[in-house]
């Protein structure tokens, strides 16, 4: 692979006529742009941004629906040496006031020079959005046509300049902007391309992943751009409403690579009617990579078993461990090994009680299984540490620390958070895992982050909304993510204390109000709400609700929730 100085040089080197992005709406409605056309449109967007005063180093927020215009705006900003960031497009369920407050917070933290929206951006979501004086709101497409633009010189971008900012969680209030340099992104892509043996002339990517997450942005946009590889993409919402489209697109476009979070490996086979499977052909896929949630062998096996009949190769299913703070992947399973990745069975009691992995035979009573996330990419190191920070050996579970040549510069404008996250060059991931024979296994998260259908949600955000209900005792709410094996993802269970015992008479009404408040605030649905009398939630010595103790009490009293301990 050629070494480029920056991401724009990599795009400039792509063959003119090769297709780059195909935006798929339906079988009879799609648009493909070649690398030359993509460059032309991105340059047009660069011109529009430049006319509005955007220059090198300025932050630009891109708030557009998934598609080619959002991507050319993002790259157009980078062409000027500016630093773009994708944010999630407003979800119709979210209350406009909440959305505006979140947006104002993020743009203020980035001190963005411009916020670019599309022509159909819902007015009510903007209203009186309090953007600071130096932030301009631009409507894409309202500027000049790219063809009318005069040529203008683009700045030279250095490898150590910031390329863009990735946001690590969906809830805007607490968002951390992960700042990445061109050099770091290019080094990650070089390692990943090598591990996956990517050939831009023969490979192509299928994606439904949102561009504001690392999987969508890095694996399915930057990697194809730098490796000169086509990508066929649809919007995440289209996919979730009709996962059958994945089978249709892969069959028709003969895509060879795709990334998905764990739940998708169950969602697709269970939500596409069996009578339609035979219409499709998945033989073109050489790597379908499970990443972002702890990888579960059962989910991958389900996908494999169902789709082997329509050509899915036995060695196509792969895994990786990735995070925005490292641009993307830390590990990747071996794409040439059949029936990868490795699965280990371990004694359940020793795992829970002593955080030790003691291998046992597959299927032994009480055993737990872990699926490997693969081996480290080149120039990557991982250290597993105990709560006291001591380095642990193979088979001991602890927090995963990462050091690499593509680690982030820090959380944008948040030196406080950066200092907590990177200590002596090691990034503290907050994930729990262990190493065994040179492979990394991720077993869960140390931090209280919920991953609902691949989306990161902070439980504090849910608790704050529920605690705001007049009948609920503020601060006596716990939101938990519990794994639902049928869905292959976590779902939200909330326990809340009412102010007065007699409020429980109106439980149904309160529950309904809480449900709609959470959806309006965060765009996610709570699966189960359990209202409890005062003093039910276990408190810590500091008087705050104690999460893990409450979780245990809840699971004990509600076996019907059917939760893994």
């Amino acid at each position, binding site marked *: 692979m050629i070494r480029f100085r920056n991401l724009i040089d990599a795009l400039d080197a792509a063959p003119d006529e090769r297709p780059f992005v195909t935006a798929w709406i*339906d079988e009879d*409605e799609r648009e493909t742009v070649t690398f030359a056309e993509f460059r032309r449109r991105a340059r047009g967007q660069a011109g529009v941004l430049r006319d509005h005063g955007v220059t090198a180093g300025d932050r630009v927020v891109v708030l557009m629906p998934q598609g080619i215009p959002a991507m050319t705006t993002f790259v157009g900003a980078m062409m000027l040496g500016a630093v773009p960031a994708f944010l999630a497009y407003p979800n119709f*369920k979210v209350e406009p006031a909440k959305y505006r407050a979140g947006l104002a917070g993020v743009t203020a933290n980035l001190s963005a020079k411009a916020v670019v929206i599309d022509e159909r951006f819902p007015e009510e979501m903007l209203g009186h959005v309090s953007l600071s004086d130096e932030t301009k709101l631009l409507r894409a497409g309202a500027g000049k046509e790219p063809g009318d633009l005069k040529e203008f010189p683009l700045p030279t971008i250095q490898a150590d300049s910031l390329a863009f900012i990735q946001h690590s969680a969906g809830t805007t209030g607490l968002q951390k902007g992960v700042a990445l340099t061109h050099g770091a992104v290019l080094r990650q892509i070089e390692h990943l391309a090598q591990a996956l043996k990517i050939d831009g002339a023969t490979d192509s990517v299928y994606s439904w992943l949102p561009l504001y997450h690392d999987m969508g942005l890095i694996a399915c946009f930057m990697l194809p751009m730098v490796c000169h590889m086509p990508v066929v993409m649809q919007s995440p*919402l*289209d996919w979730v*409403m*009709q996962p059958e489209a994945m089978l249709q697109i892969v069959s028709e476009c003969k895509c060879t690579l795709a990334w998905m979070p764990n739940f998708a490996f169950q969602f697709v086979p269970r939500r596409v009617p069996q009578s339609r499977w035979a219409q499709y052909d998945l033989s073109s896929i050489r790597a379908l990579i499970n990443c972002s949630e702890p990888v579960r062998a059962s989910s991958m096996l389900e996908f494999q078993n169902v789709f082997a009949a329509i050509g899915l190769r036995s060695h196509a299913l792969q895994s990786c461990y990735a995070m925005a703070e490292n641009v993307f992947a830390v590990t990747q399973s071996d794409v040439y090994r059949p029936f990868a990745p490795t699965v280990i069975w371990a004694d359940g009691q020793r795992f829970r009680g002593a955080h030790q992995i003691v291998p046992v035979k597959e299927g032994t009573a009480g055993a737990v299984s872990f699926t490997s996330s693969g081996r480290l990419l080149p120039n990557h190191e991982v250290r597993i540490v105990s709560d006291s920070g001591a380095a642990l050996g193979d088979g001991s579970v602890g927090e995963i620390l990462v050091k690499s040549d593509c680690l982030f510069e820090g959380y944008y404008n948040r030196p406080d958070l950066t200092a907590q996250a990177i200590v002596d060059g090691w990034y503290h991931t907050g994930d729990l895992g262990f190493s065994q024979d040179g492979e990394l296994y991720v077993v869960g998260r140390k931090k209280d982050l919920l991953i609902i259908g691949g989306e990161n949600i902070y439980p504090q955000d849910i608790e704050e909304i529920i605690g705001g209900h007049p009948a609920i005792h503020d601060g006596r709410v716990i939101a938990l993510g519990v794994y639902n094996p049928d869905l292959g993802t976590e779902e939200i269970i909330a326990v809340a204390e009412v102010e007065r015992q007699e409020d429980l008479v109106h439980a149904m009404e309160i529950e309904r109000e809480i449900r709609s408040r959470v*959806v*309006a605030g965060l765009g996610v649905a709570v699966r189960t709400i359990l209202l409890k009398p005062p003093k039910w939630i276990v408190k810590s010595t500091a008087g705050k609700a104690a999460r893990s103790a409450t979780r245990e009490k809840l699971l004990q009293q509600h076996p019907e929730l059917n939760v893994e301990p």
Partner: protein
Amino acid sequence: MTTEAQQMIEHIVQLIRKPGVTIEENTPLVSSGLIDSMALVDLLLKLEDLTHMRIPAGKVQPKDMDTVAKMFATAQRVGKPRK
């Protein structure tokens, strides 16, 4: 109400399994938190079954699926005959 709309309501009641909740043609489902986005696929499949049409998700927004009445209007607008 049409028989199809009635059948859709029965399907939704089964899907959400929340005793005491009544669903009518204009009850908000997605915006009220009764249905999460991962359940939209079931509604779209059922809608395809009931209308005997193919409904491309690329032409449907979740807000078009927020009530039973809107679902059938959406099917009318973007549905295509099954191959």
